[in-house]
């Protein structure tokens, strides 16, 4: 692997751009598109025309707006997941954290009087608190009871679905609706759309700010560095004086809080009500997880990969309409990208355990959660 010169400013950006073409991620993408072309061919459709429809669907008509509206929750979930992942904590419970956040926001928006902007703010706070609380359950389970978060966070997804469904059905439901849903939130508490952003939801702006904030936190602060070190080598991190238990609690809490706010966005910015099963069915949590993996937990690459995966999904739906190729191909494509990265199929990726120098600690964990994460769960 080439060891890059330490570079600053414009040169750094130029170097980064130059390396995009040969980066393992680019090659994994090319390989995945080729593999999926074979799959499309097997089903009797011309892959080139299918991909052309995919591109057309994502880039023309309502495509750009839909892509941004899909990218916002995907990037949000990826950021939420990246914070614990970076410290080596495998949080598979983001879906549940998002769902409880969504319900908390819906109930606040429906019942809290006041001006729209104020109610939106409080709703996001409520969602953030609910998501964080749901994430703290497995965090405390790990620090106090030694239950691996990998397992307990995942096990809490179904109870989150069941609990919110129960609450909506028996306590907060819309009696006039045939499905299990809350009433619509007041019009004033809906998140506005932005004309200059192709009419996409205004949440895109705070999400961009969050990307920058997390990038700065990770790259420029001591706790950000400590979380990276913990993700790479937990023992070393503790040896260096990091309070690992506190780090676990805080990173899970922050991640859960962001996931909860994504739920709030989906309710106040998209559907306008909490519909049972909608948030879980959206698959944003799992897409976000894949985005986080491909971006190796880094905020700016999450922005890029999240937008790309959103475009893939929107294009996939268009492809289904016009080329007769089922949209799930987009899911297949996403999973294959991660598999090729994790399996180090593409050249230029370091195998774990080799003795080559590692110029960039963060980039080195593409396709891994954190090198130490797998060792945490042992029977």
């Amino acid at each position, binding site marked *: 692997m080439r060891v890059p010169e330490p570079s600053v400013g414009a040169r750094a950006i130029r170097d980064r751009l130059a390396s995009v073409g040969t980066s393992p991620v680019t090659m994994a993408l090319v390989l995945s598109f080729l593999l999926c072309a074979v*799959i499309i061919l097997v*089903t009797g459709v011309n892959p080139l025309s299918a991909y052309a429809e995919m591109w057309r669907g994502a880039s023309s008509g309502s495509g750009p707006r839909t892509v941004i509206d899909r990218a916002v929750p995907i990037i949000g979930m990826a950021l939420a997941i990246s914070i614990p992942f970076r410290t080596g904590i*495998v949080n598979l419970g983001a879906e549940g954290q998002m769902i409880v956040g969504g319900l908390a926001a819906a109930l606040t928006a429906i019942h809290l009087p006041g001006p729209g902007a104020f109610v939106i703010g409080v709703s996001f706070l409520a969602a953030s608190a609910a998501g964080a609380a749901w994430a703290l359950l497995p965090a405390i*389970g*790990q*620090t106090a*009871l*030694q*239950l*691996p978060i990998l*397992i*307990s966070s*995942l*096990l*809490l997804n*179904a*109870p989150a*679905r*069941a*609990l919110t469904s*129960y609450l909506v*059905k028996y306590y907060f439901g819309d009696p006039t609706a045939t499905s299990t849903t809350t009433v619509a939130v007041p019009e004033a508490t809906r998140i506005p759309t932005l004309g200059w952003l192709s009419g996409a939801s205004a949440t895109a702006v705070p999400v961009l700010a969050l990307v920058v904030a997390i990038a700065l936190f990770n790259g420029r602060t001591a706790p950000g560095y400590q979380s990276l070190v913990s993700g790479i080598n937990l*023992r070393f991190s*503790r040896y260096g004086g990091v309070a*690992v*238990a506190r780090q676990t609690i805080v990173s899970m809490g922050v991640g859960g809080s962001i996931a909860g706010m994504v739920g709030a966005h989906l309710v106040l910015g998209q559907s306008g009500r909490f519909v049972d099963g909608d948030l879980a069915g959206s698959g944003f949590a*799992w897409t976000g*997880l*894949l985005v986080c*993996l491909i971006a190796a937990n880094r905020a700016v690459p999450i922005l890029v990969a999240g937008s790309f995966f959103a475009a893939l999904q929107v294009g996939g739906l268009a492809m289904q309409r016009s080329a007769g*190729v*089922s949209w*799930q*191909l*987009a*899911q*297949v494509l*996403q*999973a294959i990208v*991660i*598999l090729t990265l*994790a*399996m*180090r*199929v593409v050249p230029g990726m370091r*195998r*774990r*355990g080799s003795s080559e120098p590692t110029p960039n600690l963060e980039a080195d964990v593409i*396709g*891994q*959660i954190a*090198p*130490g*994460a*797998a*060792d*945490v*769960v*042992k*029977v």
Partner: protein
Amino acid sequence: MFDQLFDAALLDSVVRASVPILLAAIGGLICERAGVFQISLEGTMLVGAFTAVSVSYVSGNAYLGVLGAIAGGMATSSLLAVGHVSRKGDPIVIGIAINLLAVGLTGFLLPQFFDLRGVFRDPAIVGLEKYEIPLLADLPVVGNALFDMTLVGYLAFVLVPVVWIMLFRTAVGLRLRGVGENPAAAHTRGVPVTTYQYTAVATSGLLAGLAGAQLALGNVVQFAENMTAGRGWIAVVAVLLGRAHPFGVLAACLLFGFAEGLGFRLQGNGFAVQATDALPWVATLLALVIARRRFIRLVDLTGRMA
């Protein structure tokens, strides 16, 4: 009320719910003993269910369907074998990606092959026959539950002692455990570590495929999108909870089967469907808490070195 809840029919549904989880969990425990963290059971089972139904539909033979499920399961698990054992990729990432790939691929192929979405139900799909064991099946209470099953169901329960003997009473089992506990030492003693790990992962693919076949051709006769619905993850937890010991894993699987069976029954008695949906998951969490075992061994997060 309790006589209504606890009867032979409950035991029947407990056993039915346990069999797919048990098959997958036995595969998971063999991997665990070989030092491979196997969390792709969910996706492997789903592929098995899909191939089982597809092959049974096309061929009109349930056992060809089972063979298809085995092939599908082993093909899926080969991704973990190549990616983790040979290429040293992160088993958690590969496992998660396999699970999502399985959901996407089966959801993609269902409309592509059979021109429908959601649920694939057709009289041409031949289900697995049940075989009654004479005399034993007439036993009160347990007879119907344990001695009137599909061949795959019997196999699941027979495998528990067989795997125990294999692990703890044979040279192969000793080497397998050695590979898991200290691969370097096993290698030094001349044990082909990679071969053992490959075989373990392939076996888990075979068994998770069988679990899918039992689910889609035994418990019901249909394929539904994402029909495994977390059973593969429960199997992963069963391995953890049962300490990768065949009888411990059996007990854990029966516990989950009991929670699921009881859930169905409670639902019939007017309980909210949400409460019964959450029951197996909550029971699993509670079991993990009550077991009060330190599942995290390598790193003791309270501050002391492990």
